[in-house]
Structures are given as structure tokens and as C-alpha cells.
């Protein structure tokens, strides 16, 4: 291996690593606020890429129908629960309508605009909006009533949601894979390394998102409220911070990050309905490196995973997944030795 191959591999690894970093951050975010280990994070990635691919062909993406069904279900649950709880039908109705409003507007916009073949960036914004709308709905339907369950039960629920979303992906997108057009076809050469416009976009977007998340959690009241929920749910609730709202907001952010990652990864690889799982899990391995609690830890972990993967692919391409996922064991060993004691009563 000479320097030029090494630098190409390094660039490749860092590029993928940037996307794993986003997913790893989303995983940490969701876990710290809701204690949900969100296995289906990767499904949002596939949904994002495939929604854009469908819009590219001028068809209404299947996600729209799924979104309508899911929002209908969420609204119904909201209606029944509020009605039972408060006894006021009008209040329950308004809560249900609130649940419906964003998904329905997005869906209508998608149905109207799909045949118009708008430029790529409009379709991208629309795809992100559609997939982002899934976040709060998934939380509402699958997790909200289990808020006080143990992390173990929530993890099993996550696996159930992952199964359901993968199957629904197959139902609504079909088994065919898609590759999206590049957002920017410009190419740059830096010595031996050819930098594509897409790579530049991946770096810039990832960096921008990470900085935005940092600002949100450090500088805004809402972000601080989420952090409070992460530390102590009951305490936060007593301060007037609703755990329902926090959960839905967190899932909204997770879905947004997932959808954006889907758009970023779409032009570099062919995406199938079930591709998200492995991509998401690699973000996950990164998050585990940070102990599911540290954002910088997850970021470094993601870059490490990306680089290991690209070098692994070069040396033993058939075994690159084996290498990446076996990596979890030594990582956990180090964490276990460092922590030294087991957590009490959790």
C-alpha cells in the first residue's frame, strides 16, 4: 500500500465516518433523553434516500401513504387517550388534529408536487420533511405509553419497530435498489486524492449539523429542557417539562438526522429498503464507543469506524462487516475495565 492508496482510503473512511457520526449522535441523543436504544435509526436513512429516489421518478413516494396511515393512527390514539383522561371531547379533538396537521400538509404537498418534477433541492427538502414527520409519530405510537418501562423492554420494542419499519419499507418501496443523483458534480484534486463535490457536501452538512446540535443543547432553553429530561425524567416533569413532548421532539430530531444522512449517502451507494439497518448499526457502534452518553466520544468513534471499515474493505473486502462489528467487543472490554463497577438498580 502506498501513500496515495492510503490517503484515498482515509478520505473514504472519513466520509463514511461523517455519516456514522451523525447517526451515532442521534443514537446518543435518543438514548440520553428517552432511554430508548433506537435500533430503527437506520430505517430513516433508507426512507430518506428512497423517498427522494421515488420523487426523482415522478411518482408519489410510498412513504407518503405510510405517513398518512401512521398519523391517522397516532391521532386516533391521542383522541382516545385524551378523551379518557380529561373527559373533554373538544380538547381531545384538538390534540388529535394537532397530531395530524404537519404530516397531512407534508403529504398533500408531496402528492401535488410529485408529478411536477421540481428541481433536486426542492425534492430533497420535501423528502426530509416527509421522513422527519415520522419521528414524533413513531414515538407517539410505539414508545409513549411505555415511557416508564425499563431500557430492556424499550430495546425489545425498538427491535419490533425495526422489524415493522423494514417490512413496511419493502411494502412501500419494493425490493429494488436506487442510487440518487449527486448534488454537486464538481471534482477537486488534492495531490493523489480526488475530492468529489458530494464528499464536500457530506463534510459540510455533517459539520453544520453537529455545530447546530451543540448550539441547541448549550444555548437554547428547549435544548436545556431536553438535557434536563435526560438527567431526571421525574424531576424535569415537576419543572413543567413534559416527557411526552421531550420524547417526540427527540425523535423528530433523530428522524431529521436520519433523513439527511439518507440524502447524503444516496448518491454514493445503492440504497435498498433494508440498507439502513447496517448503516444505522455502524453509527450505533460509534455511539457505544462513547458509552451511549458522550457526543464527542460518538464523533471520534464514528470516524474510527469509518476508517477501519474502508481499510478493512481494502485488505479483506469480504470480512469488512465482520471486522467492524467484532470491534464492539474490545471497545466494550475497555469500557468495562474502565468503569469497574456495575450500575445499581437500573
Amino acid at each position, binding site marked *: 500500500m502506498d501513500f496515495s492508496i492510503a490517503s484515498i482510503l482515509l478520505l473514504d473512511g472519513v466520509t463514511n465516518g461523517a455519516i456514522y457520526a451523525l447517526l451515532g449522535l442521534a443514537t446518543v441523543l435518543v438514548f440520553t433523553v428517552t432511554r430508548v436504544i433506537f435500533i430503527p435509526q437506520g430505517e430513516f436513512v433508507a426512507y430518506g434516500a428512497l423517498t427522494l429516489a421515488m420523487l426523482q421518478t415522478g411518482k408519489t413516494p410510498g412513504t407518503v401513504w405510510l405517513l398518512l396511515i401512521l398519523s391517522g393512527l397516532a391521532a386516533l390514539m391521542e383522541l382516545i387517550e385524551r378523551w379518557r383522561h380529561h373527559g373533554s371531547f373538544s380538547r381531545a379533538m384538538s390534540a388529535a388534529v394537532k397530531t395530524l396537521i404537519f404530516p397531512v400538509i407534508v403529504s398533500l404537498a408531496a402528492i401535488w408536487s410529485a408529478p411536477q418534477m421540481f428541481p433536486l433541492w426542492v425534492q430533497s427538502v420535501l423528502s426530509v420533511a416527509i421522513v422527519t414527520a415520522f419521528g414524533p409519530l413513531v414515538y407517539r405510537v410505539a414508545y409513549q405509553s411505555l415511557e416508564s418501562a425499563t431500557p430492556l423492554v424499550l430495546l425489545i420494542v425498538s427491535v419490533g419497530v425495526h422489524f415493522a419499519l*423494514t*417490512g413496511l419499507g419493502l*411494502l412501500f418501496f419494493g425490493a429494488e435498489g436506487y442510487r440518487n443523483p449527486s448534488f454537486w458534480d464538481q471534482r477537486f484534486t488534492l495531490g493523489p486524492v480526488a475530492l468529489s463535490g458530494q464528499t464536500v457536501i457530506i463534510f459540510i452538512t455533517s459539520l453544520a449539523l453537529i455545530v447546530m446540535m451543540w448550539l441547541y443543547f448549550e444555548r437554547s432553553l428547549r435544548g436545556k429542557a431536553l438535557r434536563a429530561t435526560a438527567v431526571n425524567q421525574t424531576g424535569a416533569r415537576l419543572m413543567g417539562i413534559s416527557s411526552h413532548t421531550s420524547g417526540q421532539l427527540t425523535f423528530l430530531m433523530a428522524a431529521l438526522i436520519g433523513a439527511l444522512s439518507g440524502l447524503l449517502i444516496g448518491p454514493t451507494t445503492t440504497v435498498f429498503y433494508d440498507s439502513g439497518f447496517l448503516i444505522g448499526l455502524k453509527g450505533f457502534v460509534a455511539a457505544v464507543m462513547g458509552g451511549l452518553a458522550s457526543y464527542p466520544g460518538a464523533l471520534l468513534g464514528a470516524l474510527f469506524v469509518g476508517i477501519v471499515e474502508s481499510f478493512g474493505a481494502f485488505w479483506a473486502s469480504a*470480512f469488512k462487516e465482520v471486522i467492524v462489528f467484532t470491534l464492539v467487543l474490545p471497545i466494550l472490554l475497555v469500557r*468495562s475495565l474502565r468503569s469497574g463497577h456495575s450500575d445499581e*438498580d437500573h
Partner: protein
Amino acid sequence: MNNQKLFIWLLAAAVPVIALLPLPDFWIAQLNYIGLYALVCLGLVLLTGVGGLTSFGQAAFVGVGAYTTAWLTLNTGMSPWLTLFVGLGLTAISAIVVGAITLRMSGHYLPLATIAWGLSLYYLMGNLDALGKYDGLLGLKSLSIGGIDIGQGRLFFVLTWTLLIAGAIALLNLLDSRPGRAIRSLKGGSQMAEAMGISTFRYKVTIFLIAALFASVAGWLLAHFQRTVNPSAFGLKMGIEYLFMAVIGGVGYVWGAIVGAGLIKLLDDYLQVALPALIGTSGSYEVIVFGVAMVLVLKYLPEGIWSLVARKLPRPPRKMDWQDAEPLSTRTKPALGELVLRIDKIRKQFGGLTAVNDISFDLHAGKIVGLIGPNGAGKSTTFNLITGALSKTSGQVNYRGQDITSLPSREISRLGMARTFQHVKMIPDMTVLENVALGAYTRGESGVISSMLRTNTAEEQRFMREAQHQLERIGMGNYLHELAGNLSMGPQRLMEIARALCCDPALLLLDEPAAGLRHKEKRELAQVLRQLQGEGMSILLVEHDMDLVMEVCDHLVVMEFGTLLTQGSPAEIQASPAVRAAYLGTEH
């Protein structure tokens, strides 16, 4: 437990009958698969239902068992009856490695590690030339004994279900034994279990290992039944499905494993045909149904389908067969007046907060010492420092002439220091008798294997005799067979004292034993304490009820804001202006 066992014996009787019935071969094959899957789920019942841990990697362990026998029988011509044990050995090694790495950390790291491990094993099997890549290995021989083919059809059915039933009986035996009670205590957090002298880490690894071995046996059977192995049966999807089977059937019940395996297998077969026909294209749409069903079950029926049946069944009391059992051996107690405990300047800091500030006092044999002080004075923290539940920032604890400063709580418990908890910690779904028997854990030695084989009966009888004796000693003889979770607060606290007494302690530490007790119950408690003192027991007591404290204690230690305010006889403390000020405030 008795009911579950009755059902298992009924099933055992049914197996030869089913084998002789003129059922179509298709249904025999289905039953064979169900038996294999149930064997894997049985491991999950122990791991997830009882132990509160979980694994998505059981399919990978099935794969280890299957590939080991496939490769060895094809390449070396070894007998499958030998390769079974090679497979079990390899499974054990991998389970111990994965378990030892993850089980010191909080509970969700094990499932995460098993996801990663399951994935990497899947890709490894799918890419190794020696294992035939994704095509797998073909042409395995069916199992046979003395030339008779027992690897197919009805004979294989008998073999599989016999192994399953044997596994179920072994599991039920295990759960009703010394190690079984230790395993059942894992779910409630490690503090109580460790205080009873149980190494929770060791038992967590043990149940993960047992679950993996069950899966490995299933893999060995599966390989020789299908006569081919390929990675798809051992991937993460299958690992998740095994967990689904166990959870939907009822992960807390041995029968849940069998019901869940049957249900999912039949549903899976049906949906794999019906859904693509309905939708019009092929594909594994059944995962949608499974995923949704999983969420619904966890929401509305978290204990699974079998819990509906189990709730209806009567719960006969345990057969009392221990009247003639030999008493457990006891330790030598300190002589009256001997120094039992010396606390020397122990200190605990949580960051900048000093919760316990250089506390020192002594306790002599046969005395009751009360540790009192206003709320937040650091009494319970002091307790946790003495018993080793918390590590000390500085200071020393000496117990019967031995330095126990840095011993973990389970070692301290083994030396004869037993405790109760401010918030009662018990196993709600075990009877009072069984909960109390947990206290005698350190006084026995029967292990997992002897418990599974039921060669531990004599020791069990000695445990039960001791538990009954201790319960009667504190006036709880009427509650033996009641479920601990059904007790009200007072009896729960008394049960904790009986459990502590079962450790055969030389020093008893009681953390607010009178909290939540009614007046009459408090009188009885005072009586019990004095009676124990009369028998030579040394007691350290944290308590808020001043009447009780003043009545029973020989010596009082008063704490305020983590520091030692004063100590002395009850009369001196009652007269002390400083104590009055601490409790009631001062006039200005």
C-alpha cells in the same frame, strides 16, 4: 412451580402417544421445528424472564453448534455424538467471552454486544470458504444409534422433545434451589443479592452460558435434521425472532417458550405464504406483523400469552418434607462483651459533598447500638459503608479483629454480618419461605449442575428448615407459603429480618425496621429485638421511632449533617441539649 412441573410431566406422557398417532409427516416435521425453537427459547426464559438480561444472539449460538458438527462430521468423519460436545465447548468459550466483557456494565450492553456478535458471526459464516460461504455445508448425515436412523420423522420427534422436556425439568429444578434463588434475585438490582453473599456477576455469566448451551444443542439437532447448514438460519433476524417467541409466549414461564415457539413457527409459515399472495409480490412481509405484534404484546400483555393460563392455575403450597432435616452448621459467636465492630473515622464524599464525616464508634457483643439523627444525617450511608455496599473515601472498619475496610459486601456477608434495607428489597414472586431461604445462601454449596439434577435435596431441606425456624422465631410462622409481594409493609420488614437471621449472623444491621409498622407490630418488633439480644446477638439499628430506640438500645450514636454529634446511653442522649437542638431546633 409445581403446576409447571405437572404440565411438563403431562407433556412427557403425551410425546410417545403423539409419535404413534397417524399424523401426517408434515405435522411431525412442524413439531420437530417447534421443539428445536422451544429449546432455544428455554434458554431465553432463564436469561430474560428470570434473570432480566437479554440476548439477540441466540441464533448465533445455534449456528456455532450447527456449523461445528457440520464441519467436523463432513471433514473429519467424527461421530455426531462427539461433535455435540465440541460444539458445546466452542459455544461455552464464546458465551463466556461475550458475557465476561459486557456483564459488568449495565444491562443493555449485553443485548447490544450480542447484536454485534450475531452480525459478525453471520458475515463470517457467509464469507469463509471452509464453511461453504452463503451456500453453507451440504450432505450431513442423519443421527443414528447402532445403525438405526433416529434423525428424521417420528424418532427425531421423540429425541427432540425428550431433550426439550429434560431441559425444562432441569430448568425448573434449578429455579427452585440455592443457585436458582440467587438467579431470581438478579432482576431486582445487585445490592440485595450481594448483601446475601451472592456474586451477581458470576450468576449473570452463568445464565448467559446456560442459555447459549441450550441454543447450541438445538443447533446440533437442527444441522442433522436438515442435513445442511447455511448462514440464513443463524442471522440476526432469527436471533430476534427467538426473542419474539419467548416474549410472546411468556418469557417468565417455561411453558411460554413452548407456546411461543409453536405460535410463531405456525404463524410464520402461514404469513410467508399468505402475505405475498395478498400483496402480489414475494418478500418477507411477515416481519411487519411480528414487529407490530411485539410492540402490542409488550404494551398490553407484557408477561406473554402463558400468563393468561398461569393466572388461572391454583398455587399449591410447598410440600413440607424438611422436619427431620439436619440443622445447618453455625459459626462460633463472639463471647458476651467482646469487641465486634470498630468503626474508625470512616468518611464518604460524593464530589464536594461530605455525606459521612469521620464517624467512629464501637459495638460490643450482646449490645444493641442505635444510630440516630435527623433525616439526611448520613445514617443509611454509614450503614452502606460498614456493610461494603458503598466504598469508603477514607477510614477503617474492623469486624471481629479483621480489617474489612475494602471488602465487597458479599465477602462481608460471608463473615457473618447481615443486614436489612431501608426500602424492602425482596423477590415478590417467591414465597416468604423461599425469600428467607435466600438468606442462608452462604451456608450451602450446591451448584447449578447438582440443582438441575436434583441431587441437592438434603441441602434444600436443611435450608427450608432453617428458613421456617427463623420465620417462626420472629412470629411469622403463618406466612410461610404466602407470596412475598402480597405482604403488607410490616410483615415485609419482619421477613427481611428473618432473611438476615438466616445468614447466621454475629452482627445484625437493621435499617429502619419499624418504618411503616403499626403500634402493635412495633411492640412485637421490640420484643423480637430483645429476644435476639438475649440470645447473644449484637445489633446495630438505624431508627426514627424514639420510643423504640430508647427502649431497646444500650448505647446511642447521634449523627447530624454527616458528623458525629454525640454518643452515650439513652438517658444521657435524652438529656443532651445538643441532641434536642438537632432534632427540634434552638430558640433564638
